[in-house]
């Protein structure tokens, strides 16, 4: 198949391009005008075709979509104010959809996010799967969650109205080289200190190569049309396990300041009530004091990848420890073979990936 990948030079995008080529597909990578392509792909595969476009403007988009079998739409903006994100995520997608219509391209895989879910209302311990409720009050969440919800709703409405074959892929927390820390591991306080809220919540981690593979499978499997898939690796670690694993490997060893989950949510609740009752709800406070944002990062849920495995035959290639070691090796500039033999450290997980789904074990 010929796949157009937007956001192709990003963290996930590069992995998607790599995986699509590995599986024998032809890739057209959408690259923004000023990007140094030779730095991203120094030895370019002949099956990789580059098209220079910026989704925030319409010029050249229809031409880029012409002749491709499916679009894997990863491009989104995570930084900047609401309007930067609105333009780079929602308006960009709007332009892409119009261009696909014009070019007669009818297949899209949209990379959404776990951020669209409602973490505030469902009780702790529930399994987060594709039927989990969506955030009903996006304005209370951050700009990213807000714009990704707008994007997903817009694409779904467009698919229904214009007959677009759509698959929505919602990755959990994507990790890999240069991206081992995230909101779930805690707030970074200086170079080697983290404030970690909670300890026993699972982190819905997915290694970047696994997540990329889910996108390629979604684009190339007929059964995926009209479906939504959550992407989370098997056996997601609890916060304390993941952080301990990182502490063992990082130098200097990071120091973690644990903050009790019950205490954190009580403080956030009090802050929210004070804001609402005394300040008319207008005060802007750090995310850790906004209940719905705190819950989205640290509430103890469990996660399922059952649908992804059962319907698309998706499998993990590396267990957590091996994926972290691969990431660190890549960060150090070492060559890492895809099928390199892995020896687990004493006391850590076995070398074989065992994709456990929480739904199955619940």
């Amino acid at each position, binding site marked *: 198949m010929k796949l157009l990948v937007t956001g192709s030079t990003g963290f996930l995008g590069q992995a998607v391009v790599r995986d699509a080529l590995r599986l024998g597909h032809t890739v057209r990578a959408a690259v923004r*005008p000023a990007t140094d392509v030779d730095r991203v792909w120094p030895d370019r595969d002949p099956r990789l075709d580059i098209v220079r476009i*910026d989704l*925030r403007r319409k010029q050249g988009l229809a031409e880029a979509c012409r002749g491709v079998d499916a679009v894997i739409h990863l491009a989104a903006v995570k930084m900047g104010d609401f309007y930067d994100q609105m333009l780079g995520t929602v308006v960009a997608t709007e332009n892409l959809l119009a261009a696909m219509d014009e070019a007669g391209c009818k297949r899209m895989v949209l990379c959404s996010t776990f951020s669209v879910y409602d973490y505030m209302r469902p009780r702790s311990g529930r399994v987060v799967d594709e039927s989990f409720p969506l955030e009903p009050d996006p304005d209370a969440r951050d700009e990213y969650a807000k714009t990704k919800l*707008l994007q997903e709703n817009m694409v779904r409405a467009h698919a229904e109205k214009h007959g677009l074959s759509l698959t929505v892929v919602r990755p959990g927390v994507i990790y890999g080289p240069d991206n081992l820390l995230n909101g779930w591991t805690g707030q970074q306080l200086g170079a080697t200190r983290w404030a970690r809220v909670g300890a026993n919540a699972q982190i819905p981690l997915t290694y970047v190569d696994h997540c990329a593979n889910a996108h390629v499978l979604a684009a190339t499997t007929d059964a995926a049309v009209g479906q939504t898939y959550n992407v989370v690796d098997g056996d997601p670690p609890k916060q304390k396990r993941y952080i301990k694993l990182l502490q063992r490997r990082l130098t200097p060893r990071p120091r973690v300041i644990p903050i009790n989950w019950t205490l954190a949510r009580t403080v956030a609740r009090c802050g929210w009530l004070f804001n609402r009752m005394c300040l008319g709800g207008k005060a*802007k406070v750090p995310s850790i004091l906004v209940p719905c944002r705190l819950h989205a990062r640290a509430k103890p849920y469990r996660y399922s990848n059952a649908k992804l495995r059962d319907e698309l035959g998706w499998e993990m290639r590396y267990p957590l420890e091996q994926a972290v070691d691969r990431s660190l090796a890549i960060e150090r500039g070492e060559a890492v073979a895809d099928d390199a033999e892995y020896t687990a450290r004493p006391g850590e997980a076995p070398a074989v990936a065992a994709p456990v789904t929480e739904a199955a074990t619940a």
Partner: protein
Amino acid sequence: MKTAVIGTGVICEQHLIGLSRVGAARLVGVCDLSPAMAEYTADRFHADATYTNYRAMLEQAKPDVVHVLTPPPTHLRLVTDCLDAGAHVFVEKPAAPTHAELTQLLDASTRTGKLLVEDHNYRFNQAVQQIEQLVEEGELGTVGEVEVRMVLGIRGEGGRFADRHLRHPSHDMPAGVIHEFITHLCYLGLMFIPPGQPRTAERVSALWSNHGGGDHFRYDDLDATAIVGDTHLRIRFSCHTGPDCFTLRVRGSEGWAETDLFLPHVRVVKPRPGGRQLSPLVNQFAGGWTLLTASARSFRDKIMQRSAYEGLHELVVRLYDAIDRGAPMPVTTQDMQDTSRLVDALVAGQEAA
């Protein structure tokens, strides 16, 4: 009054927050080339309808007032069409990239009998109003020098002006990115020229630099002095120094006052009770107290999400009130012309350099 907006970017939000304080206004239309942007804005501010074609909006919604909030190169066409359709226009700064183009817009306003007002929002910030009152009451004596300084870190990675993938429209203005801000600097300087003096620059020195280099930014620094009557206007813009600030200092024959609109306070040095001996000491105490209370207020404003756009909200309220009562506009045609002429003079300094 039926109101509509064209362009739903960052500044639109502030216009509509201001509009929400005008009881008599009803938002009948929101227009943007992006349906998603138009719908989001319409939802948030309870507009009657959304449009992607402004002509269709003018024809169907028939607004009394239109806020034109698109990039400056589009103003000539949009503002003229709105005036021709019988609507008053409130246009974002700069209304036009040159004085000649502003004259065309003002001619259209005269021809149609409809008002055209350019956004001079910072004139209506409380701190600026307070300094204006000090000047009017003669507390500072006769104004002899006004310095307006804006420092913005817009060359940094990730900002919309530094984005090399999607070139910001302001890069193509006569003064490059600085043209996006220069209107503010000029109208703030001109508003303190003593009454009765012509507000035309007799001599101008404008040094334009690109300290950061490269071809993306034409300039990142302006160091200009304009002599207007007996008053020296110092206009400074920099995006290669830090931290961000937007300061205004007005010096008179008796004293001076200053503010930073990003961290509002008004520090005043003037003759105090205690005569010439004790005035410096009293001024220092007063200055310390001003900074202390201002820091508490700034902290409150930060928490409560109050921004430097308070002047824009106030201007919107005054504008609609003036339209309603048929009173003089808060920003006059003369204000717009004087500002535009000064901008032209500074830009001409760039060409001469």
